[in-house]
């Protein structure tokens, strides 16, 4: 029952914070996510698996229950810490944004913080849902909340971009919903523990829907718009947390009925590689910091697609990759926001250079972010390690697949440091040195430190043992086998 209270906390806080002053509301929101964060670590360390029944819904939908297992806790780990830190960051950033838009802080912040908390809470509840319809409901709530945030506070042609975002993700949600309903018709229930098998068409629809959300190559076109034009704290949730939930949904379906992914390993793998390399090359050509990060998101999500086809270690890699990308990208979007807030909407990289001179703390945080993307000395290292092991487990010492994956990793590292060089090194671009608001840099470092601590004992063992428990549950025989 403890889990229920912990999950109810941010939910209740969502409705209370609009009544508070901005500073208090921010602090309360952060705490409301830090407590679940502590609990998720406890859950991972103790190998906790809980099921809390919520309601019994009509026949083909089945029971609603809260499912807290190692997969949920792993995803929640990232969601909680990122949401808490971005909440802290929101205060100075949105104060700047409201000023820019000519609105009054106190009244606007009430609206903002309500939708912000609703958005974050719905994602947290999503990963603890034990029923596909319940999951879908939270998916749609998170979509609505983020849509409104972009619509109200976004940049550029924000209404158009918000609509664009809404349409695309709604198509994604719809496809998945049809898939869920078909599964319901076949199995008589959508509770995770009551589904025997997901049929071909249903699987295909869920997969396609989530590919749009993830996004894979092709439907990815919505993402650079939405992530670049959203207000930065929203980008810092959208990109690290929301899109990766597509991988979460696929993972849940996989844990129930893995046959689809196993049957189409090779196409999915190739698709992942192509998406990742495609987006990686696009990063080099971006001149808008936030848009650049958006393309990097597509590239990183390609890792998840690649990992899906790689057997047990691949599945572990999906989870680690989600966490690692969440940390890295949250930090990086917040650095982009830091520059925007301090230099009046400066986003154009061609006008930057040597920014370390003016904002050393943000620059150092960006380094931590890029380390996460490259898997250097951060938890992403395990993600890459598991993917590579998965490749060997699945394909043996097959030169082409290995080189493809290695190339994907190389590209990520290269664009990370290339971008860092363009923005933070070189001849200083001639701005004034500013005093950075503490809330615009400290949260970034906290996320960065967590990501580094996760490769050392005891946290590394806690996380990876929990992830290993996932394998035990699936108990899939290794596909392919080792080298000839």
């Amino acid at each position: 029952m403890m889990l229920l209270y912990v999950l109810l906390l941010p939910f209740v806080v969502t409705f209370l914070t609009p009544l508070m002053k901005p500073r208090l509301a921010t602090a309360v929101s952060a705490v409301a996510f830090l407590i679940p964060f502590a609990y998720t670590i406890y859950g991972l360390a103790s190998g906790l698996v809980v099921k809390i029944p919520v309601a019994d819904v009509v026949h083909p939908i089945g029971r609603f229950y809260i499912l807290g297992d190692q997969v949920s806790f792993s995803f929640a780990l990232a969601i909680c810490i990122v949401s808490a830190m971005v909440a802290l960051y929101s205060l100075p950033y949105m104060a700047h944004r409201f000023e820019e838009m000519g609105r009054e802080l106190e009244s606007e912040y009430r609206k903002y913080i309500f939708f912000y908390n609703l958005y974050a809470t719905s994602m947290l509840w999503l990963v603890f849902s034990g029923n596909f319809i319940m999951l879908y409901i939270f998916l749609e709530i998170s979509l609505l909340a983020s849509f409104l945030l972009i619509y109200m506070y976004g940049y550029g042609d924000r209404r158009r971009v918000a609509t664009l975002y809404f349409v695309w993700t709604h198509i994604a949600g719809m496809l998945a919903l049809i898939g869920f309903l078909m599964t319901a018709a076949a199995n008589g229930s959508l509770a995770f523990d009551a589904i025997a098998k997901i049929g071909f068409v249903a699987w295909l629809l869920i997969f396609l829907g989530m590919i749009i959300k993830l996004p894979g190559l092709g439907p990815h076109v919505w993402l650079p718009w939405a992530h670049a034009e959203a207000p930065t704290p929203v980008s810092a949730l959208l990109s690290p947390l929301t899109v990766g939930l597509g991988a979460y949904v696929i993972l849940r379906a996989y844990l129930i009925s893995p046959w689809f992914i196993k049957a189409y390993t090779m196409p999915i793998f190739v698709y992942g590689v192509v998406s990742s390399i495609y987006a990686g090359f696009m990063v080099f050509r971006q001149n808008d910091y936030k848009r650049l990060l958006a393309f990097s998101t597509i590239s990183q999500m390609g890792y998840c697609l690649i990992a899906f086809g790689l057997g047990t270690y691949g599945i572990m890699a999906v989870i680690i990759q989600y966490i690692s990308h969440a940390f890295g990208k949250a930090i990086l979007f917040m650095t982009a926001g830091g520059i925007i807030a301090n230099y009046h909407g400066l986003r154009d990289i061609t006008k930057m250079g040597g920014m370390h001179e003016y904002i050393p703390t943000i620059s150092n945080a960006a380094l931590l972010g890029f380390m996460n993307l490259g898997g250097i000395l951060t938890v992403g290292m395990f993600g890459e390690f598991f993917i590579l092991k998965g490749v060997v487990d699945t394909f043996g010492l097959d030169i082409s697949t290995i080189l493809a994956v290695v190339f994907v990793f190389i590209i990520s590292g290269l664009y990370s440091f290339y971008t860092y060089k363009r923005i933070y090194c070189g001849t200083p671009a001639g701005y004034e040195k500013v005093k950075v608001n503490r809330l615009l840099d400290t949260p970034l470092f906290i996320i960065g430190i967590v990501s580094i601590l996760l490769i050392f004992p005891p946290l590394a063992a806690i996380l990876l043992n929990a992830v290993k428990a996932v394998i035990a549950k699936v108990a899939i025989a290794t596909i392919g086998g080792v080298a000839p």
Partner: protein
Amino acid sequence: MNWEIVLLFVAPVICSLPIAFYWVKEPGSDRARKLPMLSVFGLFISFVIAIHILLTYPNGTYTIPWLPEYNINFVFIFDYLSKYMGALTAFIAFMIGLYGLEYMKHDYRLGWYWFFFNMFTASMLLVVYSDNLLMLLIGWEGLGLASWGLIGHWFRDDDHLSYVGVVGRKVGPLKMYWPPSYGGWRAISTIRIGDMPMFFAVAAIYALTGNLNISQIHWGVLFTKIGLAGTVFLMLCFLMGPFTKSAQLPFSEWLMTAMTGPTTVSALLHSATMVAAGTYLFIRLSWYIHPWALHAVPGVSVLYYIVLLVGLFSALYGASVAIGCLERKVLLAASTMSSLGLMFGCAAASYWYGKLAVLIAFWYLMTHAFAKATLFLVAGHLIHATHDRFCCGDLNLAKKMKTAFIATIIATIALGGLPPLTAYWVKAGMDTVMHHIAETVGSLPLDLLLITSLLYSAFLAKFLSLNFWKGDKYHLHLHGEKLMPFAYACVVSMVFLLLYRILTGTDPLAETHLLEYGLDKDSFIVGLGVTGTYLFALVVPRIRALSPIGTFLGDRMYLPALNDFIVPSIGWAISKLIEYTHKAIDWFCHFGLPDGMLGISRRIRAIQVGYMRVYMKIALAFVMAAIVVSMLGWL
């Protein structure tokens, strides 16, 4: 034992945190400028522990649980290699730390500098003492990151003294000068290209054996299992890491532009960390793979032959470039590359010659580390004193900087292989090894080694001559430095310690043999040849008539084109192509499709205007169509 080992790695990092944070808060304040002392104290702690390990620890491994469920743990190994290498690393790092207190006194970014400097040392120590490959990778990545941070330390690119190359010079499309930020980028991008295949190889070894401890893996069994192609592919992927880190062909360019970092960094990077990590790892691997016992396993011979050739050709390339270089640090950088090539070559010869070849490579690594650290520290002092990156100086300078002068003489002689100083005995060992394997692999390795040795002593003498005897004009600005001469005097004295160990033959593993090799007639003849080229280059450091060749060599045979032109051009071409594709998809989804729909919708709405005649026309059209269709059917 437990706390001591943890402290060895953690102390330098922890001790550098105060300055890292304080500098952000109050950059340049007097109090902040005192904190580097604490960082050096952290290095001192590591140094004491490393010496303690060298003197008292029994050989064996020590495990700290990390991921026991995966059979991956922090496994520290204490053996001949790691004990010596660890002590060497910690000593040199501590000495350079002392030197850095003075050298970097007025720098604008001390927090960054000391944090990465200490992290650099800690990472190298982790690489040195680790038996577990994944743990080694943490240190390995740490090295890469710290080197990037330090090479690009002067990120503002505002001081031409920190550039490499003649500022403003262009050859064709190539800019032949590199600012620090570019140097850092070149380093990390090259290293990344090597690290990822290596990371794959580690994962593959784990997937195939379930074990990551170098000393426990049954290498022979593994190689037999994956066959010839598998072995060569897997191990070449693995060696991509050492090859890029140790700047072997064609990955050498980053090392040359790594000279944009502070000289202290170059000194550490070139002697005991980073580039040495690559060769050290190969030496450690060979030590446990026992290639000399694996002649029945297919693939191993191919692999070692490749490494042998890569190493020796890189050695020759590096030496030739150094001959043509006039920039103090770049000359030394090229010479490092050359030495690393020799180490790779010699260690690879162990397949035919046995374990002794690995040992000789290791001894050369140690000799090189002390001598090269000295030369770099002297070069740094010279750059400070003359405000010039290029070689300049005369006997007057030598008189004013006596310690530097003497240290350079000792280091060049000791490293060049002139009898009877240290490297002579080690090089004699190498000659013997290459001579021996000539029977099986041909005389190419021996020839490469001999040419490299002759060139090597020549450019060392050239360095000495152009800086202290026959160099160009200069302006001297001595600031009464004390710590800097002290540091390089200490470091250079260590070559005598090595010499003492060789001559007395106290070490059962190596020295006795080295003495034997050195007393061999052939080795002595080589030694005389090397002395000859040394003396010649000392007297004639520059031959003006040959300057076109010198320019070609000094421009590194235009290998920079690979990093600066060929690879980026391909990359940009691909990314441009992809961008057009993306624009097309984006336009279709977000403009073409919606606008098209809008158009259709408008047309349909346009029909519904409410006039009877429009509807009549439509009805008439349907009737006509129906008639036509029925006529067609009737026909």
